[in-house]
């Protein structure tokens, strides 16, 4: 596996990206758009873009992923995609009848300079329906940027202010699975907080088998709640890469204050989330929350000896990787390699600060933004680790170097049920902890001498 990768040294590259650790904006925009009820995501570009995006999201969620396309031809690329968009919008409303068409751009339509504001202003939109758009050029940022842009697009185009506060908390969950969103909601519900979560893909990309396909499944943030965001009391943005732009959009538009936190992965980040909910509601933390937190701490103590000192390589999306790194540190493990493909932000600084907080030497943690899996592999060959943490994209390296892999984050295209299981919140941390401990202990069992096989562990 990966036999062509030179093992002697790491070559610095300026032009070639090999085995990328990110993908392009539009796929994130589609994921965000699916998190509002009754929306048809629409890709303004060549039909290949949306074919790839639907394929990829389906492979991760194992669920139907609906999205339409302007289906650019060479002619449209020369003369602009306005006519294609018009036909598409007419057909979508006629045949698929969504409440909202949420358009995102592509590198194609951005490069030719299609003006979505002008195009959408000229559309003949049926009564009560909406067409919104956001700009997601594939040559800027990553899928995380696209997710953030589409979430902000909903606020920009749909949020309204009546002047009467709903007193609601607006929670932006970040680029996480529906299983994570459900977990985040259990705490909001435990406090009895009135909230709007957007995007919210629960009930959309984790639907039950009923024998009936729903084009617009019952989940997703209700449109009325999206509109009412202008009357929210406060925004809680989880993950600065995926969620802050949307919080910012609402601040700009209606001056609604926001807090940005890291994704609540692990103990302390979840504590921060709980404290934020307590602050917002001015309520004490419900006992049930104490109990599940206590179970997590208890379990972390229980398995500590099997995790302590283990060197871990972590890759994936920045908000997720920062959360995972903190949790790894909380478990007494060493984040030996930490990488994300997404550019921008203060990723390295944040990782360095976490390591400093837990007394890990600067040299003990190699960290890079805009990394690719090829480089991570080359570096791991030089300095092996005990565990890989992140998406399926680690898979080849795991096999090549015989390093156990615990799958979490996006995308997981070679295993099932992950989108249903949380990695955020205390229960998510328990789930992660169980996967990590099981994986490391299974390996110990498999590799030890017969006489060393522990019947009880």
């Amino acid at each position: 596996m990966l036999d062509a990768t030179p093992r002697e040294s790491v070559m610095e590259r300026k032009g070639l990206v090999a085995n990328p650790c990110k993908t392009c904006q539009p796929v994130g925009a589609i994921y965000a758009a699916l998190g509002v009820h009754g929306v048809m995501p629409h890709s303004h570009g060549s039909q290949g873009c949306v074919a790839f995006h639907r394929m990829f999201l389906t492979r991760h969620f194992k669920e139907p992923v609906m999205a339409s396309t302007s289906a650019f031809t060479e002619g449209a690329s020369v003369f602009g995609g306005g006519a294609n968009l018009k036909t598409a919008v007419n057909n979508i409303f006629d045949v698929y009848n969504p409440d909202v068409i949420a358009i995102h751009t592509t590198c194609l339509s951005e490069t030719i300079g299609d003006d979505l504001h002008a195009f959408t202003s000229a559309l003949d939109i049926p009564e009560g329906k909406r067409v919104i758009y956001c700009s997601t050029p594939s040559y800027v940022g990553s899928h995380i940027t696209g997710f953030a842009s589409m979430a902000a697009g909903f606020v920009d185009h749909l949020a309204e202010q009546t002047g009467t506060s709903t007193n609601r908390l607006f929670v932006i969950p970040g680029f996480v699975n529906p299983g994570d969103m459900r977990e985040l909601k259990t705490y909001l519900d435990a406090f009895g907080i009135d909230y709007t979560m957007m995007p919210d893909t629960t009930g959309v990309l984790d639907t039950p088998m009923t024998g009936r396909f729903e084009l617009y499944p019952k989940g997703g943030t209700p449109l009325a709640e999206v509109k009412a965001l202008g009357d929210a009391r406060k925004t809680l943005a989880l993950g600065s890469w995926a969620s802050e732009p949307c919080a910012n959009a609402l601040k700009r538009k209606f001056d609604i204050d926001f807090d940005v936190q890291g994704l609540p992965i692990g103990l302390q980040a979840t504590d921060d989330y709980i404290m934020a909910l307590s602050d917002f509601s001015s309520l004490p933390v419900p006992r049930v929350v104490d109990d599940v937190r206590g179970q997590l701490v208890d379990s972390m103590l229980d398995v500590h000896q099997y995790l302590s000192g283990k060197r871990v390589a972590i890759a994936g999306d920045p908000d997720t990787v920062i959360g995972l790194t903190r949790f790894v540190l909380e478990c007494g493990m060493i984040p030996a390699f930490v990488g994300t493909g997404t550019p921008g932000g203060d990723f390295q600084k944040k990782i360095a600060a976490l390591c400093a907080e837990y007394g890990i030497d600067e040299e003990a943690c190699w960290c890079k933004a805009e990394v690719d899996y090829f480089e991570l592999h080359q570096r791991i060959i030089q300095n092996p680790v005990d565990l890989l943490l992140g998406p399926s994209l680690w898979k080849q390296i795991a096999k090549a170097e015989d390093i156990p892999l615990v799958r979490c984050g996006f995308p997981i295209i070679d295993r099932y049920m992950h989108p249903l299981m949380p990695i955020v919140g205390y229960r998510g941390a328990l789930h992660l902890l169980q996967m990590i401990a099981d994986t490391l202990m299974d390996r110990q069992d498999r590799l030890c001498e017969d006489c060393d096989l522990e019947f009880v562990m």
Partner: protein
Amino acid sequence: MAYEVTEERGSSHAKSPMETVLDGYEAKSYKNRKRHMVTVDHALETPQEITANVRTVPGLLTHRGCCFAGCKGVVLGPVKDALTIVHGPIGCAFYTWGTRRHKAVPGDDGLNLVPYAFSTDMRESDIVFGGEKKLMQAIEEGIELFHPNAVFICSTCPVGLIGDDIHAVAERAEKKFGVKCVAFSCEGYKGVSQSAGHHIASNQLIRRVIGENDTPPEGKFSVNILGEYNIGGDGWETERLLRRCGIEVVSVMTGDGAVAAMQRSHMAGLNLVQCHRSINYIAEMMQTQYGIDWIKVNFVGVKSTVKSLRAIAAYFGDSDLSDRVEAVIAEELADIQDDIDYYKSRLTGKTAALYVGGSRSHHYQGLLRELGVATVLAGYEFAHRDDYEGREVIDSIKVDADNKNIETLHVEPVDGKYHVRFSPEKLEELKSSIEGMGYYGGMVKEMENGTLMVDDLNHFETEEFVKLLKPDVFFSGIKDKFVLQKSGVVSRQLHSYDYQGPYAGFRGAVNFAHDLDMEIHSPIWDRIAPPWRNRPLLNGDIADAAQKSEGGEK
């Protein structure tokens, strides 16, 4: 005519399924989509015509991909000894990384780059100032790291728009580094589907790769397998059969394929065309340039595998070879017969719909028939009319604005490399006796009256046809898979084989039958409705319940 309304119309039995589905459209889409549908009727005097390979109607939720997907994803992706660099923003390289199941093992030179994805990861500044420098840098780094036998450069949408000259970069790089560098202008917006990309890839392979190494085959009987991408190991199973028969496989285009092998493919005795759509261009051009005949084979299905092997033997006209082929067929058939009979007993009477790329919707109909499964609907994502109606219609296909920009290479016999194999008389005799020699008849001829052919089937039509035709199994791709499964219809992916396979050849037929049987007879299908669904609403003693409720209040 909103979505919900068409559902009601779907229940009307007065109209044909085709008319019922079309009724869901407004006038313009109705007119457009009607031309892409045919209810097969062999009794008609003139053959039925279907519209294909024309632009998709925007907004109807097509399943089609793009030119880049056809070029890089399909044809070039499986080539293991070439460094294929995607010049563009990161997405296109990312989505074609390791996801198409074209299996490969390192060749004699130890090289296998199939598990990698390479990109120039163009950023905003590259779009503004041009990406040629970065591309050159990427080629240099790639060559230094991997020492590939060739570098393939595939362009994505913005590259064509900003005017990066990838062909000039390839030429400079080839001179500078002494490694063959071939550029493919396969921007996603070109053509109307993946099909344009197949053609562009084929053209460049003919121009720059095929015919460069005159090392002759070792055996007396040698072939190339064209349009076999080794999905799930199909190509390996086909090769195994051919080798057993004593037939040398010089090159496979392009499953587990190599530039080194393709360079000497013109020395083979015969071209076998598995996927007609994606690679008939190469078969035709190699015939003109090198005098190599081609036969349309089909190694999916038991009967068609037998037929294909016999056609090859008939072409070479050697009695020893024929004897070996017959012996292999007899042995392989004996090995699988019990299994096939068993699965047939479990599957007979089922019906299937197929919507796949440009060949499989036809190829699998025969295998399904052998298992007792009737096809009620078949459609192609990106085929041309000849794939539906047969090559006899090629001359009558209209060239439109979208297709005329896809270059058609005009090739001539190559001096010193053109081999005359048979006299014109003998050739005519072979053509009349071997079905599929230089000819493909399309899918329609093998379809039953009353069944449906639908080109570029979209989501709306899929849902409606499923309601009307109620197939027991729908063979399609990942975008459809869970739509169908949620609807309670068995769905198998015929692009990726749902990560199983191989399905080619005799043993593959058994694998396919096993997987279909397993899926159709999964115990879970009967347990979708919860047991309380059909229970009486009220149960138990009312007085007792009231008492309990009171107790609760205390």
